[in-house]
């Protein structure tokens, strides 16, 4: 066990301080000061990695809530296979590593003045800023839907109360009822996530509501790991899941949360439970600071994660356009670690180094049936983080049950190790 220096001990004892105490001008004590907004996959990883490699930096993590529930494995909660508490973590681990935790909502990034403005009016100054606030749901893009109606047609696309609500609605669904899931077009958080959810909900129905049906109303024609998902659905839940591709539904034109219907250009789907996953974009916090340029996601220098629109501001995770990397928790965590190295180097006046970046998205089609898609990414000569040709790809179709069982075990092992790295 590492011994903490006096300075680190001081940092630990001042963890969980309020924003106002942190409003000192940057570099007041000559220590580089890095502020991170968002205590999810990207932000927690950046904070932890940065404190590990630069114990003399002040690392301040601003995040909305004292607890963070992960979307990974939230589909297992929805299927009743894991308790909600098992996907919920606090920030004591990061605080013990000397990260100063500020619980509160950032409402403005003043990038020219290098401060983050908090909801209570306090300002947090930085030398460099890392932002990984995830996604914002575009509720009103769907006629008839609204944030106020999210409990009637839950999205459960940010883990928390919505996860528990959807789990309870599914558990209470009448025998032989229909579960309708509306899935947006790309890009959105976790490309295989909806299909993992369909399989795990089917697993729940198979045990508790065997005549129930699942209809996926899709905003696109094909999806991640499609051949593997459909093979698994036919094998595990024959006849239970119907996938309606965009070309067969023409797109959602309206929903009625009272009647629980989803109307597409060609057909109206009525559900007993409707899981409506709206289209998404980078959070307004970033877009109003100009970090999205003309678009809804944040372009970055893919070698350094620095915004071309705001020097000293690094964007990562779901909110950023990170070359070929998918919007996943694994990707965001790797990006957080790499970004920590970049920021450390830049603040030391050194050139940032490059590494090879990996991603794996595991999906559980049943609690003991895992499939995966993997990728290897390197910055190419044009500065793009490109997928390396001939690498990555999905698990094989037609594999043995043993293979699927072992991938499910690996998925659980990944989750345990990753969350230990971030929050342990």
């Amino acid at each position, binding site marked *: 066990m590492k011994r903490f220096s006096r300075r680190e001990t001081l940092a630990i004892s001042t963890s969980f301080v309020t924003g106002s105490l942190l409003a000192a001008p940057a570099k007041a004590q000559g220590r580089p000061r890095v502020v991170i907004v968002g205590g999810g996959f990207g932000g927690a990883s950046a904070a932890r990695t940065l404190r590990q490699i630069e114990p003399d930096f002040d690392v301040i993590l601003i995040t909305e809530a004292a607890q963070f529930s992960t979307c990974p494995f939230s589909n297992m909660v929805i299927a009743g296979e894991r308790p909600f508490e098992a996907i919920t973590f606090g920030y004591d681990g990061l605080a013990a590593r000397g990260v100063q935790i500020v619980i509160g909502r950032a409402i403005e990034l003043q990038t020219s003045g290098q401060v983050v403005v908090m909801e209570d009016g306090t300002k947090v100054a930085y030398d460099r800023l890392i932002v990984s606030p995830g996604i914002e749901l575009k509720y009103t893009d769907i006629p008839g839907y609204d944030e106020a109606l999210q409990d009637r047609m839950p999205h459960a696309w940010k883990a928390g109360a919505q996860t528990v609500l959807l789990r309870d609605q599914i558990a209470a669904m009448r025998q032989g009822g229909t579960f309708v899931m509306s899935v947006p077009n790309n890009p959105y958080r976790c490309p295989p996530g909806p299909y993992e959810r369909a399989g795990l909900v089917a697993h729940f129905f198979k045990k508790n509501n065997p005549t129930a049906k699942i209809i996926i109303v899709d905003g696109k024609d094909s999806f991640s790991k499609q051949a593997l998902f459909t093979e698994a659905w036919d094998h595990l839940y024959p006849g239970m899941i119907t996938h309606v591709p965009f070309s067969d539904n023409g797109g959602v034109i309206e929903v009625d949360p009272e009647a629980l219907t989803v109307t597409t250009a060609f057909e109206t789907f009525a559900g007993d439970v409707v899981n409506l996953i709206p289209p998404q974009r980078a959070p307004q916090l970033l877009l109003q600071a100009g970090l999205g340029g003309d678009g809804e996601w944040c372009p970055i220098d893919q070698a350094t994660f620095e915004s071309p629109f705001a020097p000293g501001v690094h964007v990562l995770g779901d909110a950023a356009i990170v070359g070929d990397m998918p919007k996943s928790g694994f990707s965001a965590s790797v990006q957080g670690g790499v970004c920590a190295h970049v920021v450390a180097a830049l603040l030391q006046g050194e050139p940032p180094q490059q590494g090879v970046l990996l991603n794996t998205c595991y999906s559980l089609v049943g609690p003991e049936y895992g499939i*995966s898609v993997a990728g*290897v990414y390197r910055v190419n000569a044009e500065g793009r983080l490109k997928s390396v040709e001939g690498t990555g790809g999905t698990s094989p179709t037609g594999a043995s049950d043993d293979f699927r069982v072992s991938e499910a075990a690996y998925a659980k092992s990944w989750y345990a190790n990753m969350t230990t*790295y971030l929050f342990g």
Partner: protein
Amino acid sequence: MPFCARLTLRTGNLALADMHRYLLAVGFAVACTPVLAQSTSDEITFLSCQMCHGQTDSAGMMPVIQGKPYEGLVQSLASFSGQNPGTTIMHRFVGGLTPEERDSLARYISGLEGVSR
């Protein structure tokens, strides 16, 4: 451009890696030694490895690799690129590393402090 000891670690040289750890532990700033710039850094690449293989002794099926002997690590990495890798994921990754990077990464991982489980 002078590179600091922190960067020389990334050459994968074990002696330098040990020295680096020592210097970090005692918190000294050191004079910079010029080394050849590398296209990738083992320390950064290892970030991706540890997302599954863990940095601590957390439970799981993925073996802890930190501090394991270099020979075993480099052999495993080579076998993953062979005909029957016997793995579910690793063979999809190793093709993304040059043989030099594999060697250097194995050396780096073996030089890290081991964790028990």
